[in-house]
């Protein structure tokens, strides 16, 4: 084959292709530009198309560059061949070396990621069970990182060392039962340990024995498209019954006020919880699936329409303490939605404040009740005389609180 003829044919073909591409791009751009002139009045699309053309050109230039390098390599190899010299570039060596380089740079990259991005992740868990989860996470992280680094070193080092040089024959080694047994049993053992730990942690999170002296604070969360509603139980400690069929414009949660437990239920704009006291979340949804996600406390559970789910936890760090620990004066706990729920999915959030017991009691007194005058009329409840009937008998202090909140509601 004539070398010169070969090259010139290919070059001409390549040039022709590039020319057509250029021509068609510019033709397209002109057509689009013309269309823009006639239709688009508000935005001048000229500069936009120019930018697009610029980037297209830049990319085509890169392609051209690659093509030229490819051609040059080909010419080089063909000349070597024509002069009966050994092949110019040993691609096995090139790729083997690249794998070795990738290993070194990659290991540094992993180190950089672990130290830089690894420092940007969530602070320590702010709940009792969260500490156990973090512990498990760290153990798993250590094990997997060791395996990750070791296997990658083996993979890329083998790729480098055993690249073909054309002088060697590979070692015929179809199997070794002892080896295979080892790397079946060792992962199995490690995983058994992880499974057992995970299983016990999981049980400790979801199977809680209630301590009668330390009853959890019930808080009901209702998700709806793009908002959270928080309901506090009021003085009686019980979140009353609700029924979705009762939902209307004045009764957004569908609370059934025929149930006496509902009468003192309180609304809140944020979730405020006392530190070191168990909290029981009652999670419900009004429309589609959402997911109640409170990352700092290692809590997540979906909210499902038609099904109530529960999550009990004990916060251990107050917001103020966390501000100090994270060295961030603006730090705030929050919960958000983690299950795709519609176009406002990315906005659903509420602030959470963990405070001392005293601060909590002061705060909770100020919260209004769900029951309003309109609702009293709807449920045929006496408008003014309610407080006495509502108040639970066991605590005078709480009793007055209930009266006050109801009076507040009346004034509204």
């Amino acid at each position, binding site marked *: 084959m004539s070398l010169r003829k070969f090259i010139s044919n290919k070059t001409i073909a390549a040039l022709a292709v590039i020319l057509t591409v250029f021509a068609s791009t510019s033709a397209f751009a002109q057509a689009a530009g013309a269309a823009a002139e006639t239709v688009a009045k508000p935005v001048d699309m000229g500069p936009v198309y120019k930018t697009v053309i610029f980037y297209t050109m830049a990319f085509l230039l890169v392609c051209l560059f690659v093509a030229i390098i490819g051609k040059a390599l080909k010419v080089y190899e063909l000349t070597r061949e024509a002069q009966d010299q050994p092949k110019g570039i040993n691609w096995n060596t090139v790729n083997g070396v690249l794998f070795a380089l990738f290993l070194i740079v990659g290991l540094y990259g992993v180190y950089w990621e672990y130290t830089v*991005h690894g420092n940007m992740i969530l602070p320590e868990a702010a709940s009792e069970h969260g500490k156990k989860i973090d512990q498990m996470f760290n153990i798993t992280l250590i094990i997997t990182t060791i395996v990750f680094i070791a296997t990658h070193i083996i*993979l890329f080092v083998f*790729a480098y060392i055993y690249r073909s040089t054309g002088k060697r024959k*590979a070692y015929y080694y179809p199997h070794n039962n002892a080896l295979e047994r080892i790397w079946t049993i060792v992962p199995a053992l490690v995983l058994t340990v992880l499974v057992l730990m995970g299983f016990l942690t999981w049980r400790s999170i979801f199977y809680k024995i209630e301590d009668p002296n330390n009853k959890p604070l019930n808080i009901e969360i209702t998700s709806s498209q793009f908002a959270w509603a928080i309901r506090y139980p009021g003085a009686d400690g019980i979140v009353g019954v609700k029924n979705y069929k009762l939902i209307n414009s004045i009764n957004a949660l569908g609370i059934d006020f025929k149930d006496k437990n509902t009468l003192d239920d309180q609304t809140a704009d944020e979730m405020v919880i006392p530190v070191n006291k168990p909290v029981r979340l009652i999670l419900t949804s009004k429309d589609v699936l959402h997911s109640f996600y409170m990352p700092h406390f290692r809590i997540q559970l979906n909210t499902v329409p038609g099904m109530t789910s529960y999550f009990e936890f004990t916060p251990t760090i107050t917001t103020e303490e966390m501000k100090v620990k994270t060295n961030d004066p603006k730090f705030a706990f929050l919960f958000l939605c983690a299950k795709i729920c519609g176009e406002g999915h990315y906005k659903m959030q509420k602030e959470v404040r963990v405070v001392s017991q005293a601060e909590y009691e002061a705060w909770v007194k100020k919260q209004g009740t769900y029951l309003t005058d309109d609702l009293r009329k709807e449920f045929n409840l006496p408008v003014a005389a309610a407080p006495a009937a509502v108040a639970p008998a066991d605590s005078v202090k709480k009793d007055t609180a209930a009266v006050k909140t109801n009076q507040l509601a009346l004034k509204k």
Partner: protein
Amino acid sequence: MSTISLHDTHNHDSHDDHGHHKETFLTKYVFSQDHKMIAKQFLITGIIMAVIAMGLSILFRLQLAWPEKSFPILETFLGTWAEGGRIKPDFYLALVTIHGTIMVFFVLTAGLSGTFSNLLIPLQIGARDMASPFLNMLSYWFFFGACVIMMSSFFIQTGPASAGWTIYPPLSALPTAIKGSALGMTLWLISMIMFVASSLMGGINYVSTVLNMRTKGMDLWKMPLTIWAFFLTAILGVLSFPVLVAGVVLLIFDRSFGTSFYLSDIVMGTQVLPNEGGSPILWQHLFWFLGHPEVYIVIMPALGISSEVISVNSRKPIFGYHAMIYSLIGITVLSFIVWGHHMFVTGMNPLLGGVFMITTLIIAVPSAVKTFNYLATLWRGNIRFTPAMLFAIGLVSFFISGGLTGIFLGNASLDINLHDTYFVVAHFHLVMGSAAIFGMLAGVYHWYPKMFGRMMSSKLGYLHFWLTFISAYLVFFPLHFLGLDGVPRRYYAFTEFEFMQKWLTVNVFVTWAAIIGALAQVAFLWNFFYSIFKGKKAPQNPWESNTLEWTTPVEHLHGNWPGEIPTVYRWPYDYSKPGSETDFIPQTVPFSQTMSSNMPHDFEGNTEAERIQREWEAKNPAIAEK
């Protein structure tokens, strides 16, 4: 059964030979019943869908990187979905939904299994065609129809489905909840039913072909690992896909006929819906009963392909052939009982969470065995870095990186805080996204000569591999840390949350890496399409491989082999066998021709053969000792 179909194809073959059978353009390229052509149809459709889905991902990466910036050019193409040059939140969700659907189902299921099962099953087991060529053709056309219907949802006013690729009801059931759940979701569901029909027809065909139509001597334990992988994948698909159809049909009933399988106690705004007694969790069980086997449907063919490619290019037998098969079988069986790990935090009974955690972590064992066997295959090999080999090694790397993070997510306790965050996104994009697509690309580079009779440019292949490999890691590695910071997935913008602001720069970086990765695919596309017409003519066995497909002529013919189908005598991995002159011994070479390299275990206890071998060794002590 097998004799009948074999007989049929023989008849067909003789028609060809006598030139009576005239193929028109329509029967050769469009409604072809030849498995090789159908494989190419699947591949090219898969590539087109992959390019589309990749384009969609670049669109939403633009939004994530520059949430405040306007790109007027987007409005030119997307109209009201990107008014003012900014993608709207509901269209963003449509983008992620369709990206996921196309990639998982159309590219990595149909594009991967459809291409390579069709191409390789008959060629590697020695059959003239599939058990049912007509069903095979239907399988492609149902797939094609599914693709067209899925894409058509971009041309309707309310836009494509946008409830995520898992389309959890009630969001997917109620058009009032999101615009994409109107006509777009109907099209999604119809498309999915057609897709499942296609994959069932394919799967049944693959299973029956492998079971009934192997050539003489090709017993199950002499099949290449590719065939084992395709075979088990097909079984998995046949058993699990119907469950998805069941789920989809119930969802169609809920959406269009007022039933309440998945719906209960729902109020949209202040409008109380009449549905009672259903459960959204039911959908999740049905969906993930397919959905989890599905990820193995995606990865197993890729693992099969890489086993073959790594063995051929290391010039070594695959290490632990039997262990590889048993681990594939283990994965197949276990994958049916792990689906609940997608549902740890749905509010499902916590007892189930514990059970599913155990089964899930058990499945890591066969996966680990496979990884170590790959590494052992490379050990003391004579590695030739063809582009296919590079991609296969890339697959092993991704499989390790993504597999290890699976240990976090499979642990129910850790999943509480990682569920639906970017950690999950990073995990599955590495272990099933990147790994499977690398397996597919390895397959394309490796069997391109078989498909098109020409070679692809290996240098462009190197460029393609390195750019893709590096950019895939740059895209997905940092995403783990977003997840560890509690950033949920499918968020339109990070602007609403104070704590997410610090990740905006990372998002810009990831988007640039994704753009470079996407542009690198141009090297592949150019290489692929240019080489079909202008590539160097391929020799019959370009990689010096043992398997049967390389004994067929380069020019395709209907029926694959011009004469009789070759007989198989040995396993497919006799590479660099000591005592042999060449470093590969094809499956069709009988042991009587390789006396100098035979080993005791080759005869599988056949005393007659062992006796002959002993006699030969006694006569030729010098050679035998080597």
